[in-house]
């Protein structure tokens, strides 16, 4: 099915306790080459027909109004799933 992907990350200046916990695990595993970890979210929005500019505009709107809280997060990507196997449901 055609899928639109929305990716959201916590703003750079905001503490990301989940990422910090994973970074701590990497240190304990001796993977010291990775100096920090930040965790974001990926939404996959499935549609029936082809992905049009109107659908992408609508996805951008819900990304900013609902999927992300732009006070604490940034929407970093809204677009068609980049390949057939890029979306879990595809």
């Amino acid at each position: 099915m055609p899928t639109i992907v929305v990716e959201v990350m916590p703003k750079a200046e905001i503490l990301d306790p989940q990422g910090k916990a994973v970074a701590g695990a990497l240190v304990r595993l001796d993977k010291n080459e990775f100096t920090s970890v930040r965790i974001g979210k990926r939404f996959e929005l499935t549609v029936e027909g082809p992905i049009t500019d109107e659908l992408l505009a609508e996805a951008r709107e819900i990304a900013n109004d609902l999927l992300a809280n732009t006070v604490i997060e940034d929407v970093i990507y809204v677009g068609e799933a980049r390949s057939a196997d890029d979306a879990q449901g595809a």
Partner: protein
Amino acid sequence: MRIGVITFPGSLDDRDAQRAVKLGGGEPVALWHGDHDLKNVDAIVLPGGFSYGDYLRAGAIAAHSPIMSEVIAAANGGMPVLGICNGFQILVESHLLPGGLVRNDHGDFVCRDQKLRVENVDTAWSNGFKEDEEIIIPLKNGEGGYIADQATLDRLEGEGQVVFRYLEVNPNGSANDIAGISNARGNVVGLMPHPEHATEPGFGPDTRVAMRSGTDGLTFFTSAISSLMANA
């Protein structure tokens, strides 16, 4: 005075909030998230819990529920609105209050009797306190870290919109030890600690006087009623 308490799917402390309204001398009115009806209430409490499972972000889905369009209009018209814990998260997600609430910096859920200082006694929900009064209110949250950009923090501090500040322990990594804030007008207040759990002797936090005797939370509700009386 009729004080509405909204129940969302996943609200946990709505009945406690209704009871606190009654103990404070008001008439509690149950409101439902799916209605577009505030039932002629004079003030509104958004209670604690995990509305809609908090699946997207805490309070995010509730902020878009049907009754919130009426709540936002009423709040902008000056009606007293109190958001407790998840209710505070709903208020920031609705943009009725600035900033955001993120996972506690230490990553754990925290539950404790928390000392607070009341720093603004001119809001609808804090006018019964004395300036800089120290109170103890139960706190229980996993995502209670208050954050905002520096300009917003400076404005909140400069305009006296920090209403409650954590004392002794910052339990969740909140910026500037902020426990609760108000809008510029002072009718909308949100905080992470739970005043409705400190309203009845025998069921509140421990004090120096006796176990579970703390009732500092009652003043939130009597404050709202006296502010409504003053404006009536």
